[in-house]
């Protein structure tokens, strides 16, 4: 039986395969997902910037060979702190509400932590309850409110996760 896009997909949890960005062949999958769901017009160079320089920070989620979610990130020095940044996070509608986004983000953040990041940051619309809850559970706080950040006049929160200082080696 065909699964219509509006219906929730029937899946077992272990059936979702998480894969680190593996090369050019993943790029069109990521681009299609993001173009579908987000309103910003990104050129291919934007995607290349992220996945070429920080391939280890981008992840894809597959279900039975189909790409259903992705996270795209970067990290670098920013005003004397080494900081990770979550640029794009998408899960297609039928697969939402199952923790796929949380798993994608968690993998990326873990990689950032292991790479020596002191904190992670991103922006989210103040109306995006789902994203705020997701990141809140992971330890992000709402560090700032950005007035009329988006073109439609919606404000944004700058979310920040501060890692605890590295434990002393005993």
């Amino acid at each position: 039986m065909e699964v219509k896009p509006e219906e929730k997909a029937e899946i077992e949890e272990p059936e979702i395969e998480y894969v680190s960005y593996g090369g050019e062949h993943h790029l069109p999958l990521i681009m299609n997902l993001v173009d579908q769901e987000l309103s910003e017009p990104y050129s291919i160079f934007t995607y290349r910037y992220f996945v070429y320089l920080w391939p280890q920070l981008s992840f894809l989620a597959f279900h039975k060979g189909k790409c259903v979610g992705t996270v795209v990130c970067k990290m670098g020095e920013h005003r004397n702190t080494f900081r990770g940044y979550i640029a794009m996070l998408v899960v297609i509608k039928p697969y939402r509400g199952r923790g796929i986004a949380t798993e994608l983000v968690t993998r990326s953040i873990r990689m950032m932590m292991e790479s020596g990041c002191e904190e992670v940051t991103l922006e989210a619309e103040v109306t995006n309850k789902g994203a705020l809850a997701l990141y809140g559970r992971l330890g992000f706080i709402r560090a700032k409110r950005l007035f009329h950040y988006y073109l439609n006049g919606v404000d944004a929160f700058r979310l920040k996760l501060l890692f605890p200082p590295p434990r002393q080696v005993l």
Partner: protein
Amino acid sequence: MADKPVYEEASIDGQPPKLASIPASDTTVWADASPLLQAACAGLRDGELIHGDNFNLFAAMSALEIMDPKMDSGIVCTYYSIDEAIENGAAPIPISLDSTIDVRCTIDIMDHLLACEAAWHKGHSLAQTVFSCIYLLRLDRTAPHALLHSYCRIIRATCKAVVSVVSDARTHEEEDLFTMTYGLPLNGDGDDKCLSILNAVEETISRQLRACKATSSKRRLPEDLEPLQSNSNLEEGFCKALLCRLRFRKHFFHVLSCMKRPQGRGLESARKHIASCLTELESILESADFLRSCFDESCEGDIDDKTTASGFEPIGFDAMLNSRLSAPTPPRAIKILSWKKAVEYFVKLLHDLDVICSYSLDPHLESLLRFVVQFQKSQPDLVARSHLQLLLVQDGKLYGRDPFFAVINKAAALPEATKNHDIQKNESFLQLGMLVMNLLKILCTNAAWQRRKLGKFLQDWRVIYVQLELAFRNEYGEVSSSSNDENTCMKIFQHILLWVEEQTYWIAFRFLILGFELELYSTGEYCMVYWYLYAVLIKLTEKTHLMMAVSHDTAKRKGKKKKDSSKDLARESRIPPAVLFLQCYICLAEGLTMMLAALRNEIPVFHSPSPFNTEHEKFVQHFELLQRACIPDHVSYPSYKESTTHARFSTLAMYNYFKDAQRIAKEVKSSFSNDPERAFSTLFSRLGGRWGRNVPFGWIHFSSYLK
């Protein structure tokens, strides 16, 4: 960019170009680059990028895709230029040869311009809103059409006035699109006469209205006057619809002019014009029924989304013509407010301006701060806030009238005589004056920006305190001097040092409270926030109380002895109402902290650790700016943990916090009978957001349910 003159004459097209192409000149020649581009496409594989010294992947992100309308602002959508648009009849004059349609279309243009103006105020660029009007871009050609011409002139003059106010306030915050006017014809010769031109048109239409009424009552026509338009059944309706629109613009322009007058001299007049504006806006709304029904053809689509009262699309607008003149980022299509929403916006703006105009210019800083905080609660927009800021700070003085040292002198409860003391020339006191001035400016900005600035500001206030203290110690050490002037100086230092501390804690309090208004705290963080509030309030209350004691001394020393000395003594021993009010806050903050801590400690579901960090990191992040400025001293995450680890429902003291708060509030209520803002009912809502009113009583019920 900041120094670039805001007003520039339009020089969009040097010469009218050929319709279909850009001509070559003496020094330029066209060359076909297609073969080159073709070869380049074949020369690189997918995923390859040319590495250049100044071209890396980061730079590549800013690449534009040519011919993509979302990115390529040079792309021609309808017309290449304004002249081409005009040549193709995009903005005809007259709009229609049928005078009835011409009038209706003119009204549509007026309505759409109002909607554009509101969209501009709300944060879009002038080029994509008001100046998407072709008539406005070439105002001179509207001269044969008196109605359109006068309306466009006053719109232009109004926009220029508003840009001026917002530019002068210089706190564009994140709204820097607002003052971008590059290449737009904002300066017009003779715009200073726009009011008299408008009055002439208004006068004509008034006579036309009188004439059509006289005709209908079969009285003799007073003069040989041409009617507004040819359909006598619609004459009255159209005249009225036009008159209220013209009068609204006239009064609105007057509001701006009056409010611009220095030292608030025009505020009372402004209020009268504001009232007239509101009346005319009501008439404008009422005209919608007539405008919708006067033609047989009905318009498609939802009437509420339309940018005109009639529901018809306005003639003469093209937002893409200015694409090279609008903000540097690629132009995105923006949504102009609906006409209804635009009217609502102006009603709100006028109400906000009215509040400003009603302000009594109180020389007491404390009252002023309360007024500004209260004003901000209605979330006024940029234009209103800019007007407030310009009223408060002009020529480096409060209200353009009171030097800031005099203001500080009064706020610090120093005698009137010291306000002219030479000590104000001291560097530290000059800087303190600047800090107060900047504080007022910051308090007029939008809440999100304001909180960030206040947080950073704390450091400046701490520094000035240390500087003043150092200067004080250097001058006077610990020895009390004998000379009169030295005594006065010492007193000035002592009062002002105390006042600076009080002010610093007030800023810290505002910083924390704004976090609730901006929804920056998630519910799991409320406990630590209320705890920190409690710590700040303790210090604020202490300083306020000291300040009041010192001010009482000053009053006594001035010889203001009351006749009834026993009453005087009683008043002395009573805690001042302002301090009681703060004590009430302390009880609430402490109570809420303990209650939330108890919930966390006793009910596991309220305590959910995150995988990547702990509460400690959140504490550090939320209070970083306060901690850095040591506000207050000796406050840290360990001390927070210590205070809250042992909180349990069984602790009876918890009941007392809220009972105490109630008791104090009742006592305070009578003292502020002439100041309803301080009434009991506002207390809970100010501190707790959605927790406010119900929680203290609710949790008592809740905890007994748990037993």
